[in-house]
């Protein structure tokens, strides 16, 4: 790609810089933040946005540079967007479970422990569903 800078090249370069910058900030948050519940924020949000930007950069580059539409990148980004909240939820559940059973202790971060849910319920990891909640099939 010699000669004048094409629009595709500029757009792809900007998206690559944006994406890797977000991935870097997410990992910096993983190192820097004080407790696990805060550390979950950095990678799960920033990294998926960073990956999204990089995958869009790849789509733009292959479409405008070589004239082919590639769909692998969209598949990867859809897959990441679907799975990132699920794995973050699983990690948070493991964290709550280990805090409750006393297998792991942690100093509270600035956000403190998670607020209890409304009513008499608790952030349960092993409990049966409460009445009236979506997992409660006994009341159907």
């Amino acid at each position: 790609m010699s000669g004048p800078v094409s629009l595709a090249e500029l757009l792809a370069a900007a998206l690559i810089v944006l994406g890797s910058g977000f991935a870097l900030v997410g990992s910096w948050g993983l190192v820097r933040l004080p407790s696990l519940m805060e550390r979950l924020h950095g990678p799960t949000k920033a990294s998926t946005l960073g990956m999204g930007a990089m995958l869009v950069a790849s789509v733009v580059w292959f479409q405008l540079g070589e004239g082919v539409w590639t769909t692998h990148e969209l598949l990867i980004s859809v897959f990441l967007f679907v799975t990132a909240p699920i794995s973050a939820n699983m990690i948070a559940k493991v964290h709550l479970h280990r805090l409750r059973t006393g297998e792991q202790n942690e100093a509270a971060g600035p956000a403190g422990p998670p607020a209890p849910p409304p009513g008499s319920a608790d952030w349960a990891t092993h409990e049966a569903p409460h009445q009236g909640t979506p997992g409660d099939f006994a009341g159907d």
Partner: protein
Amino acid sequence: MTLSVLEGALAFGFAGLGLALAMNLWRLVKGPGVTDRILALDTMVINTIGLIVLAGIAGGSGTAFEAALLLAMVGFVGTVAYAKFLLRGDIIE
């Protein structure tokens, strides 16, 4: 030697993702609890997917993306397996 705009952006991206992987590795080694280590491994997988995508752009071939898709799937299954094992003491009940 002058870099084109895209080459400069790719160099920045490789350097940034490498630094991000190094920071994840620090958290993986240091992490006070096992949940920090699971989170660090999950983030390492995501950053490695980014590296593979950048390598695909740099190499100009579409074959890197199958590897990235496979890594995304295997990384998700691995994270869920770790979490399920710690929660329930078993992976597939």
